[in-house]
């Protein structure tokens, strides 16, 4: 029993398994980059044939990154990390908190970096000098009297040994954030025509309705183009949020890369659709009377107050989507001939009639496409990412460096023997230099003589 337990433990704690899982994850991930993901079943039948498509369905290839086997691989990877950590961390922790003033003198004699000195002074004076020398080189030291002399110890960044574990932990934190997001969050979308509002959004993929608990309204949508007239410069929606009959967000503009956050739900500008219709504002410049309308294309409308009739009788479309470039207006206030003219979309035109002048502004009605996401795990993911970067820096570029100075009396020779020695957890070459600089400090001091 003990033995099998041990074998299972060893298996899950092994780095061999980690290498295996990493390579399997790397190779299988390629599949989803070659075979388009999340298309409807018909797509796979058309592209790969009936039998292959069936085989794909069996292995969830059309959504492989959420398939049972891919998630199992990630699960195995996590178990591996956890077991490996439980297996090794206690020993590493010991190294971090170890009292190095208890180190066995025999082990000091075998340290990878060593230098011997002799001196004629007594141990107390030598201890003081050595501590000062260490301090001069940036080593803060502690010391302890020993039966035959004195031991001085100093170390730098012992906690850097934990860097690796911070990296490993960060992977689990990121996974935890992803799980929180997929359990408690959603990804959805909605199309809102200008002036339209909704309290429901529709889940991506399934299309099932998700109530928001408040309503979001699109007051306005605009596309702005660069001077070349073809490249879009900005997509901008203006959103208003109402909750319990109260306006809680009033006319907040959003653009791509600057979404609206409200109660843990985020609204992203993602697409738009031109609609068959126009927003029209007519202003009588003398009386300042003004009225806005939303009218369909090709119908006669009237503004009773001013005795005005008008309509959009033709339009020039710029793209296959149906964006209107210019539109043709028919306008009459019953005085004289009706005005008929072309104007740019989203512009305004002055109409001068015998008895009055009018300002006529028209713009095509758009619907804005909003991506709506709720992801309560995202801050956990970001915390994991930050931890990973810090952990990698610590694991790669910092090391646990230790220096001992062991001073012993040699009674028969009437002098002291001084052993300066050190060890590093990694990056030997850099430590060698650091150690040499320290030893040079001892050599230059008149109290010490090279042995």
């Amino acid at each position, binding site marked *: 029993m003990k033995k099998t337990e041990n074998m299972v433990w060893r298996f899950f704690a092994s780095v061999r398994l980690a*290498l295996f899982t990493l390579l399997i994850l*790397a190779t299988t991930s390629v599949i989803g980059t070659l075979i388009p993901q999340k298309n409807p079943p018909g797509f796979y039948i058309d592209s790969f044939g009936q039998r292959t498509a069936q085989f794909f369905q069996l292995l969830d290839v059309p959504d492989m990154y959420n398939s049972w086997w891919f998630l199992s691989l990630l699960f195995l990877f996590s178990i591996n990390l956890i077991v490996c950590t439980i297996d090794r961390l206690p020993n590493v922790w010991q190294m971090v908190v170890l009292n190095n003033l208890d180190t066995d003198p025999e082990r000091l004699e075998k340290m990878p970096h060593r230098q011997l000195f002799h001196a004629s002074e007594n141990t107390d004076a030598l201890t003081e000098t050595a501590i000062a020398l260490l301090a001069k080189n940036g080593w803060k030291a502690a010391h302890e009297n020993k039966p035959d002399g004195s031991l001085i110890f100093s170390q730098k960044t012992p906690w850097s040994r934990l860097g690796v574990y911070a990296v490993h932990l960060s992977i689990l934190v990121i996974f935890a954030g992803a799980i929180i997001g997929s359990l408690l969050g959603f990804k959805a979308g909605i199309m809102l025509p200008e002036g339209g509002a909704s309290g429901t959004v529709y889940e991506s993929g399934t299309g099932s309705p998700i109530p928001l608990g408040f309503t979001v309204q699109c007051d306005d949508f605009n596309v702005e183009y660069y001077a070349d007239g073809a490249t879009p410069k900005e997509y901008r929606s203006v959103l208003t949020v109402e909750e319990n009959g109260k306006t809680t967000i009033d006319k907040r503009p959003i653009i791509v890369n600057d979404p609206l956050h409200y109660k843990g739900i985020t609204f992203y500008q993602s697409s738009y659709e031109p609609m068959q219709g126009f927003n029209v504002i007519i202003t009588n410049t003398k009386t300042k009377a003004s009225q806005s309308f939303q009218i369909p294309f090709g119908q006669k409308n009237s503004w009773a107050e001013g005795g005005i009739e008008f309509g959009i009788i033709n339009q020039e479309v710029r793209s296959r989507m149906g964006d209107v470039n210019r539109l043709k207006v028919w306008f009459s206030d019953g005085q004289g001939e009706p005005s008929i003219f072309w104007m740019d979309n989203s512009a305004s035109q002055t109409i001068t009639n015998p008895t009055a002048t009018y300002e006529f502004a028209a713009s095509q009605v758009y619907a804005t496409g909003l991506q709506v996401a709720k*992801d309560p795990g995202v801050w956990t993911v970001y915390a994991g990412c930050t931890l990973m970067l810090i952990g990698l820096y610590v694991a790669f570029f910092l090391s646990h460096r230790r220096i001992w100075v062991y001073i012993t009396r040699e009674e028969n020779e009437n002098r002291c023997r001084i052993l300066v020695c050190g060890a590093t957890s990694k990056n030997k070459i850099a430590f060698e230099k650091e150690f040499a600089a320290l030893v040079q400090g001892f050599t230059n001091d008149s109290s010490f003589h090279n042995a």
Partner: protein
Amino acid sequence: MNSSQLLGITTFAYLFSAVLYIAMLVFRAKKIGLFATLVTAGAFLINTAGIGLRWYESHQMGIGYAPLSNMYESLVFFAWSIAIVYLFMEIRYKNRVLGAFSMPFAALAMILAGLKNPDIKPLIPALQSNWLIAHVITCFIGYAAFAVASGMGIMYLVKDRRSDKTAGPLIASLPDLKVIDDIIHKTLLFGFLWLTAGIITGAVWANSAWGTYWSWDPKETWSLITWFIYAATLHARFTRGWGGRRIAWLAIGGFVSVMFTYYGVNYLLSGLHSYG
């Protein structure tokens, strides 16, 4: 003088620098070493000026943006990153032979850039983000380190294959295998840190633009595959004591994956990243 002319000069300057380093190695002409370094530093400055001027030109056109947003600009920045990573290593390791195995990558990146259209085009809304700038810079410093590491991998294999036979003076002038191995390792660590930062900044950007930090789009997935490969490489070294030829091969293989992530995905697969 406009930026594409400056960057055209940069191409020749990097090419010249690569040729000088290789000549220095082949003809064991130590004397031209300093000249090679000066040419490289000069090329790097022209490259920097070219990027700066392009930035300025975009502002003159009223569409100011950091020139890191399409294949042309990213290749130019890739060359710049390789040059700075290499110059750093030349100073750090006091060894010019590394240049023969690094600067050809910078020249190649500029030649590839030369095949692209250098027109300055305005940025579509999705690309107007400071996270994009952080994303491109971090990724390309990582890519550049991996390019240099693969060059060192090639150097290792060249030296190793010949060392047992009658090692010619050419081979003898390469650094010790142990030294090359150490350089490969350090460069991989450096690259891995930046690649990780690159993937993370990309995720943050995606989240601010689309509301998902990860969507398994082919480019994202390939960057993760590359990351897995390097993670496996580092673990094989730390915990299983791999070194030498095997790590040299992995440094080369990892870079093939980098190049596929960067270049191959755009042409062979479809996805969100239609630019560099």
